[in-house]
C-alpha cells in the first residue's frame, strides 16, 4: 500500500467557498455597476441639460426682429447659467434656417434629424471634443414673413462626467458595503455548514492508535460519501495490518521450518552410524541450507525493495546500461555457462531508455527473473532479454524456455510464499519482489507464455519523455527611462505676450537664471492682435495676455494644454480655469489723476458718484478725461463691459463722458504720461499695476480707488496644445505661479503678484492692502464669452462710440 501523497497544495474549503461567493458578488457588482453607470449618465445629463435649456431660453428671449432680419442681444445671464458648470467649454450660435447665422460659431454640428421646434432638443455630438448640445427654436414675424430663429448651445462634458462619476461612486460605495455584509453572512453560513467536518477531525484526533473501528453516526448527506470512503480506508488499513501480521508470521514460519529441516538432516547425519546414510543426510542438509540461504537472501531483497520504494530514491536512470551490466555480472556465475543469454535493445536509441527509477531495485528484479529462469528451467535454458519502446512505456521483457506458469496460476504467482512447483520451489518470493519493484515504479507487470514455451515476463515502465521546450525569448526594455531625460540640451521657448516687455523682462531673466537650459524668446503683442494671431494658427509655447475674456475665448476653443501644476492650488478660485489657464497677477482698475488738478478729497467715493462728479465739473474736465479706446484696447473693453454688468450707472457715466469730450488712448503708458504731464487731469479704469508703479515714482500722479467696488483682472498664461516645447513651457508657467516667480514679479517688475509673498512689502502692496474688501475680481470662465459675441460686441461698441464720439 502506498502512502497518501500530499503533492498538491492544500487549500481551505472555507476560503474556496468564500472566494466563489466573492466572485459571484463581484460579477453581480459588475453588472450593477454597468447599469448604475448608465443611470448616472442619464441623471447627470438631466441635471446639466437644465442648464443648457435655461441658457437657450434666456437667449431666445432676447431675439428680436429687426429691419435686416432677426437680431439678438446675448444676455450675460445665459453664460452665467452655463458657468454653473465652471470648467466646461461653451459654444453657441443663433441662426435662422432662412437667413443664416445671426451670431456665434457658424460650423457647429447639426444632425439632420433634429426637428425645429419650440421645446428644447438635446443631442451629443463631437466638435473637437465631445459636446452636449441643446437646440431650441422660436417663430417670429419679420418683414420677410414668419421665420424660425434657432438657438444652439453646446457644452463640453467635464461637469457631466464628474457628476456621473460622483453618482456612480456613491452608489457603488453603498453596494460594496452591502456586499461585504452579505459575504460576512456567507462566511458564517459556511462555518456552520462545515462544522460536521470538524467533528470528524476531533473524533479522529481523539482515537487511540490501534482503534480501527469505523465511524458511527448520521453525517449530512453531502459528506456521507467522504465518511464512507474514510470508513472503507480504515477497513483496508485494518486488513493490511492483518496481512502484515500474517507476513511476519509467514516469514517466521518459513525461516523456522527451513532451519528445522536443516537441523533435522544434520542431527540425523550426526547420529547415523551408517556412512552411506550419513552421506545422504548431509547431501539433503546441504540442499536445505541452500534453500535457506536463498530464502534469507530474498527476504532481505524483498525488504530492501519495499524499503527503497518507500523512500523517494527514484531518479532519472538509463535502463539499457543497467540491464547490460546486470546480465554481464550474472553471466560470470558458473551456473550460467550452459545457458544461452541474449539481450536485444537494438530498437531503443540512446536517450530513449530514460526513466525515473531506482537502479538497485530494477537490478534486483532482473536478477530474480533470471534466477527464476535458471532455477526452474533446463540446464541449457535459453533466456532472451529485450528492451523496447512502446509509446510512452519502456518495456523490459524476459523470456525463457523453461516450463512456464499455467495461465490459471499466474495471478497467484506474484503473491508472497506461493511457489507453484514444489520440487523446484524457491522461497516463493522471486516474482513477488519483481511485482513490488514494478509497483514502486508505477510499472505494469504481465506474465505470459514465451515464444519458446516458457515464461515471458514483461514490465512496462512509464518512460521519461523529454519534451523540447521552446526557448523563451525575453525582451529587455533597454531604452526604458532614456526618453524622459533628453531635455538637457538647451531649449528655446517662444512666449507670445500682451504685456510690456520691461514689465516681464526681469521675471524672464530670473527664470532663465534658475533654468539655464531654457532660453526664452519674448514677443510682445497688443491683446487684440495676439488673439487674432492665435486664431490664425500661431503656435508659440506660452501665451500671456491681460485680456481675460480673449484668453477664455482661446481656451474655450480647446487649444490649450492641460497642465498639472501643484502651485495652482494656491491660486484664488477665480484666477484659473480648467487647469489650462492660470492667472498670475492681481491688477485692479484704478483712477489715475493729476495731483495738481484735484484735491484727493474731492474725488468721487463710489461709481454712482462718478457721473455726477464729471457732470458737476464738466467745464473743468472738458477734454481732460482719458479712457481706453475700446476698439483698440482689449483690457479697456474688458473693464468697460464688466462695469456694464455691474449696473446701469456705467451707461450714464459713458454718456456724461461723451459730453465732456473724453479723450481715448490706445495704451496705458500714454494715458498715464498724459496725466502726469497735465494734458489730462484724470484717467479712468487704468490698469493699476502700471499706474501704481509710476505713481510711486512720480509725485504728480495720484491713484484713486473707489469704495463700492474696484474691478480686478489677472494676467494669465496658457500653453497651447501645439506647443513645440511643452515641457519647458510648462516649467515656465509653473515658475510664474511659484514662490520664486511671484517674488520676482513683486520685487523686480511693475506687475503685482497674485499670491502673497513672504517678507516682501512694497508701496503698491501696502496701498492695495488698504483697499482690501473693495476688490471685485473678474472670474475666468464662460461668463466672459457674453461680450465677445460678435453681434453683442458690435452693438456695445456702437453704443459706446455713439456716446463718446458724437457726430459733429
Amino acid at each position, binding site marked *: 500500500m502506498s502512502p497518501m501523497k500530499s503533492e498538491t497544495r492544500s487549500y481551505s474549503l472555507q476560503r474556496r467557498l468564500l472566494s466563489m461567493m466573492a466572485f459571484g458578488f463581484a460579477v453581480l457588482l459588475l453588472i450593477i455597476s454597468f447599469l448604475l453607470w448608465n443611470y448616472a449618465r442619464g441623471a447627470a445629463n438631466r441635471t446639466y441639460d437644465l442648464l443648457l435649456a435655461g441658457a437657450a431660453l434666456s437667449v431666445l428671449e432676447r431675439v428680436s426682429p429687426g429691419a435686416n432680419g432677426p437680431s439678438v442681444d446675448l444676455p450675460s445671464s445665459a453664460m452665467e447659467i452655463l458657468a454653473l458648470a465652471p470648467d466646461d467649454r461653451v459654444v453657441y450660435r443663433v441662426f435662422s434656417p432662412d437667413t443664416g447665422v445671426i451670431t456665434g460659431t457658424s460650423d457647429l454640428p447639426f444632425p439632420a434629424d433634429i426637428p425645429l421646434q419650440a421645446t428644447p432638443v438635446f443631442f451629443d455630438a463631437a466638435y473637437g471634443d465631445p459636446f452636449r448640445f441643446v437646440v431650441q427654436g422660436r417663430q417670429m414675424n419679420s418683414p420677410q414673413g414668419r421665420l424660425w430663429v434657432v438657438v444652439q448651445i453646446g457644452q463640453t462634458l467635464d461637469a457631466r462626467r464628474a457628476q456621473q462619476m460622483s453618482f456612480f461612486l456613491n452608489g457603488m460605495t453603498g453596494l460594496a458595503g452591502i456586499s461585504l455584509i452579505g459575504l460576512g453572512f456567507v462566511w458564517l453560513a459556511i462555518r456552520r455548514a462545515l462544522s460536521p467536518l470538524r467533528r470528524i477531525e476531533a473524533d479522529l484526533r481523539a482515537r487511540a492508535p490501534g482503534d480501527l473501528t469505523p465511524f458511527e453516526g448520521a453525517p449530512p448527506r453531502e459528506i456521507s460519501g467522504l465518511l464512507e470512503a474514510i470508513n472503507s480506508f480504515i477497513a483496508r488499513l485494518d486488513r493490511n495490518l492483518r496481512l502484515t501480521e500474517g507476513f511476519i508470521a509467514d516469514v517466521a514460519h518459513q525461516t523456522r521450518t527451513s532451519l528445522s529441516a536443516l537441523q533435522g538432516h544434520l542431527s540425523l547425519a550426526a547420529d547415523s552410524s551408517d556412512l552411506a546414510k550419513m552421506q545422504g543426510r548431509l547431501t539433503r542438509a546441504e540442499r536445505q541450507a541452500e534453500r535457506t540461504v536463498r530464502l534469507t537472501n530474498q527476504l532481505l531483497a524483498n525488504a530492501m525493495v519495499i524499503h527503497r520504494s518507500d523512500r523517494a530514491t527514484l531518479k532519472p536512470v538509463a535502463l539499457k546500461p543497467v540491464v547490460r551490466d546486470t546480465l554481464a555480472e550474472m553471466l*560470470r556465475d558458473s551456473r550460467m555457462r550452459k545457458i544461452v543469454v541474449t539481450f536485444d535493445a537494438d530498437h531503443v536509441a540512446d536517450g530513449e531508455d530514460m526513466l525515473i527509477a531506482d537502479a538497485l531495485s530494477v537490478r534486483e528484479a532482473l536478477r530474480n527473473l533470471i534466477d527464476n529462469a535458471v532455477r526452474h528451467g533446463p540446464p541449457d535454458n535459453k533466456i532472451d532479454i529485450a528492451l523496447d519502446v512502446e509509446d510512452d512505456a519502456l518495456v523490459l521483457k524476459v523470456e525463457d524456455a523453461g516450463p512456464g506458469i499455467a495461465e490459471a496460476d499466474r495471478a497467484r504467482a506474484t503473491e508472497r510464499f506461493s511457489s507453484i512447483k514444489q520440487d523446484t520451489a524457491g522461497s516463493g518470493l522471486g516474482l513477488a519482489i519483481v511485482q513490488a519493484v514494478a509497483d514502486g515504479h508505477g510499472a505494469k507487470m504481465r506474465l505470459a507464455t514465451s515464444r519458446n514455451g516458457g515464461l515471458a515476463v514483461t514490465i512496462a515502465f512509464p518512460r521519461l519523455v523529454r519534451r523540447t521546450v521552446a526557448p523563451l525569448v525575453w525582451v529587455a526594455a533597454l531604452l526604458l527611462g532614456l526618453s524622459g531625460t533628453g531635455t538637457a540640451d538647451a531649449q528655446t521657448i517662444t512666449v507670445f505676450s500682451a504685456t510690456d516687455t520691461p514689465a516681464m523682462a526681469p521675471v524672464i531673466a530670473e527664470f532663465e537664471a534658475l533654468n539655464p537650459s531654457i532660453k526664452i524668446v519674448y514677443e510682445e503683442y497688443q491683446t487684440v492682435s495676439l488673439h487674432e494671431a492665435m486664431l490664425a494658427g500661431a503656435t508659440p509655447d506660452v501665451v500671456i495676455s491681460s485680456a481675460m475674456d480673449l484668453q477664455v475665448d482661446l481656451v474655450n476653443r480647446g487649444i490649450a494644454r492641460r497642465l498639472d501644476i501643484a502651485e495652482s492650488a494656491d491660486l484664488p478660485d477665480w484666477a484659473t480655469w480648467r487647469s489650462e489657464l492660470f492667472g498670475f497677477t492681481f491688477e485692479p482698475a484704478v483712477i489715475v489723476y493729476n495731483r495738481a488738478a484735484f484735491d484727493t478729497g474731492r474725488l468721487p467715493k463710489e461709481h454712482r458718484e462718478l457721473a455726477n462728479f464729471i457732470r458737476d465739473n464738466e467745464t473743468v474736465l472738458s477734454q481732460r478725461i482719458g479712457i481706453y479706446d475700446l476698439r483698440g484696447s482689449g483690457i479697456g473693453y474688458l473693464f468697460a463691459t464688466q462695469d456694464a454688468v455691474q449696473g446701469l450707472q456705467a451707461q450714464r457715466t459713458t454718456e456724461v463722458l461723451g459730453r465732456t469730450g473724453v479723450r481715448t488712448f490706445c495704451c496705458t503708458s500714454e494715458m498715464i504720461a498724459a496725466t502726469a504731464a497735465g494734458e489730462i487731469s484724470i484717467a479712468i479704469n487704468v490698469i493699476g499695476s502700471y499706474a501704481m508703479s509710476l505713481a510711486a515714482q512720480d509725485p504728480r500722479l495720484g491713484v484713486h480707488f473707489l469704495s463700492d467696488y474696484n474691478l480686478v483682472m489677472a494676467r494669465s498664461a496658457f500653453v497651447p496644445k501645439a506647443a513645440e516645447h511643452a515641457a519647458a513651457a510648462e516649467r515656465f508657467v509653473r515658475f510664474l505661479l511659484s514662490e520664486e516667480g511671484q517674488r520676482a514679479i513683486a520685487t523686480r517688475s511693475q506687475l503685482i503678484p497674485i499670491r502673497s509673498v513672504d517678507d516682501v512689502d512694497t508701496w503698491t502692496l501696502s496701498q492695495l492692502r488698504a483697499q482690501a474688501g473693495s476688490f471685485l475680481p473678474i472670474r475666468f470662465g464662460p461668463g466672459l464669452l457674453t461680450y465677445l459675441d460678435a453681434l453683442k460686441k458690435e452693438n456695445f461698441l456702437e453704443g459706446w462710440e455713439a456716446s463718446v464720439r458724437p457726430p459733429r
Partner: protein
Amino acid sequence: MRILLIEDNEELAETIVDRLRAEGHSVDREGDGNEANELLRHTRFDIILLDVNLPGKNGYDILRSLRARGDLTPVLILTARSQIDDRVVGLDAGADDYLVKPFDFRELLARCRVLARRRSGTASNVFVAGALSFDRAAKRAIVTGKDIDLRAREVQLLEILIDNLGRMLTKEEVADKLYSFDESPSLNAVEQIVTRLRRKLQETPLVIKTARGLGYMAYVADEE
C-alpha cells in the same frame, strides 16, 4: 596454488581453509586487517580472498595499498553486503571478482580457478588448459600435441580472451583491442574471427561463449 584468506570469522574461515586445502592448495589465513596488510608487504600469493569488514584496516584499504604498491595479485572480495554500490567500489579499487556471502563452495572454487588461469595466462608465457597450450612469446597454439594454424588476428583475440577469462567483453571492446587506432574496426570481422577461433579450439576446454547483444566471454570448462 598459494592462497591468502583474510577473514575475521573463525567458523567461516575454518571451512574455507579446509575446503581449499582439500583441493590441494596451500592456504594462509589472517584475521586482522593491519596484520594482513603487513604480511602482504613481504609475501607473495597467487590469489587473495578478501573480506570487507575487518578489525583494524578494512578490505578496501588493504586492496588499495596493495595496488598502490604495484602488486597485481588477483583479489576476490567476499562481502555480506548485497548492495551494488559496494561491489562497484570494490571492483574500482582493483578487485578482480567478488562473491556475496553465503556462497556455494563450488562457486568459490570455480572463481578461484578462473582467477588463477587468468593470472597464469598473463604472468607466464605459456597458458595451459587441458589439451590446449598457448605460447605467448612464440605465438603458437598447440592442441593435443599438434600445432594449430592461427592467423595473427586470431592469436591476438586468443590473447585478449585469456587476459579476460570469465569476464564479459562487448563486441566493441574486443574490436578496440583487436584493431589499432587508425584501422576501422568492423564488428562483422570480429564476429568472423571469433567464429574461426572457436572452431579451431573445439577440441579444447577453452570455451568462447557468445551472448547476443552482450558480447563474448571465454572460460575454461571444468574438468569434472
